[in-house]
């Protein structure tokens, strides 16, 4: 959230994220096609769409882990591969959960890039880690082994690590999956509270209702962008049908149109 990130000087006039006609091929087939959008500092974008719509591909490309086949990505005016101020939380963090570490240890890992090779973490690094824990409300669990955390606490820990990293852009891939309703809303209001401080958020998610309530901007995706804008403009019956096809059931009701995702069977755990 600082003006400049470690190792890179930002163009302060450039938007936080700018994606122009982005296409990513996977095994010769487009996983993502012709996506464009821009986010100013502190904006929050929800990326929604059916499974396989390219949500994860989009986030990986923004994180600089997947190369665009065509089009450009700019984060504060620079290609994404050059940033330490960009944090990516994958859907299932490929983390060694047996690793002997406390919550504070993991959050301190956010400072490793800034500290640089062969340098020890300083008192200032520890202060930043504690501030990050404070912001996500995990200070009381700082010395708890990571194996003892609940799903929601794990997500908060990784967000704290991103904050300790002084990230300016936070990419989250379906962080709400597996959380109970209370933890979901807790996480979303936490992120909402961070955006006035300049944190730009891109979140892939399935929960359309939460996207509509907590995000000022939504991108509806099915390989190609189907709609982009405020939730009310995006979630039209026509756009939803185009994105979800027969998986979606639209019912007229007193409160407007009601969208049902899986009307048949409960989701497998």
């Amino acid at each position: 959230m600082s003006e400049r990130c470690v190792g890179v000087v930002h163009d302060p006039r450039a938007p936080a994220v700018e994606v122009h006609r982005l296409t990513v091929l996977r095994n010769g087939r487009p996983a993502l096609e012709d996506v464009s959008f821009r986010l100013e500092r502190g904006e929050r974008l929800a990326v929604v769409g059916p499974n396989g719509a390219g949500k994860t591909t989009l986030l990986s490309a923004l994180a600089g882990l997947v190369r665009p086949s065509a089009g450009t990505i700019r984060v504060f005016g620079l290609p994404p591969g050059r940033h330490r101020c960009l944090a990516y939380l994958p859907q299932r963090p490929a983390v060694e959960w047996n690793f002997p570490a406390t919550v504070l240890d993991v959050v301190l890992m956010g400072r490793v890039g800034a500290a640089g090779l062969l340098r020890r973490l300083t008192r200032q690094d520890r202060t930043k880690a504690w501030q990050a824990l404070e912001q996500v409300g995990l200070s009381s669990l700082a010395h708890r082994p990571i194996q003892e955390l609940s799903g929601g606490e794990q997500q908060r820990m990784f967000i704290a690590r991103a904050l300790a990293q002084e990230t300016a852009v936070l990419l989250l891939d379906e962080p709400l999956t597996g959380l109970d309703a209370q933890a979901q809303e807790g996480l979303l209001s936490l992120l909402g509270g961070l955006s006035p401080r300049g944190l730009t958020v891109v979140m892939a998610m399935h929960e359309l209702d939460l996207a509509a309530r907590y995000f000022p901007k939504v991108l509806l995706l099915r390989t190609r962008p189907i709609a982009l804008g405020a939730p009310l403009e995006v979630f039209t019956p026509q756009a939803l049908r185009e994105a979800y096809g027969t998986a979606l059931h639209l019912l007229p009701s007193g409160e407007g149109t009601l969208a049902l995702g899986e009307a048949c069977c409960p989701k497998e755990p």
Partner: protein
Amino acid sequence: MNPLVEFFVAPLQHAFFVRALLAAISAAAACATVGTFLVLRGMTFLGDALAHAVLPGVALGYLLHRGSRTAVFWWALGTAILTSLGIGAVSKRGRLKEDTAIGIVFVGMFALGIGLISTVRGYAVDLVHFLFGNVLAVSPFDLYLVMGLSAGVVLVVCALYKELALATFDPLFARTLRLPVEFMRHLLLVLAAVTVVTALRVVGVALALAMLVVPPATGLLWGRRLPGVLAWAGGSAALSGFLGLYLSYYAGMAPGAAVVLVATGFFLLSLLR
């Protein structure tokens, strides 16, 4: 003299015993340090393969420089580093699963080693030394090598501690921080190769894996954070080296086996805690 003091002091009058003791302690501590990272990454099978794959190098050094133990040492080190990098490359782009690729390299190299040694008449005695170590025959020069390499390994791990820890815990995050994750994976393999060669002197090819795996496993049972785990692993390994040699001295047991038995004893005691 107090009998307990006498028990520990008596063997120290032999210079060979002191050298063996120092070699065993430093090699064990280095193995435990690198082994902890291998165990956390689930790379222990690779460590085992590495230890066995060193045998043809040892055999070649032995055949080409008959009698020179130091030459054998360098040959072993070279083979171990080549193999570790080779396994890294094969497992990365091969169509086989990693453990299959490792298994093939492992048995192939081991067979080649035994085959080479068996061409020498009266090979059985020498083969036993390579397979089970011969720490009581460590020369002063060998001791300096073992201690120098062990210290080097521990220093490298200390210098890159936070990067190694991060790349072990969350490689993807390390990549987004632009840390050289692949380089560190290979570095860890090379460090493992170096420690295996030091362990070779103490416990031999067959038991080198024990020194990479058992003390870290003990450490993981005691420590809640990585520094603690490393301290417990290194401490229990060094103590195993120390007590193992006394066990070997008084029970007339092969020193390598005695060291591994003590380390395993520590692990079992830790389980009961």
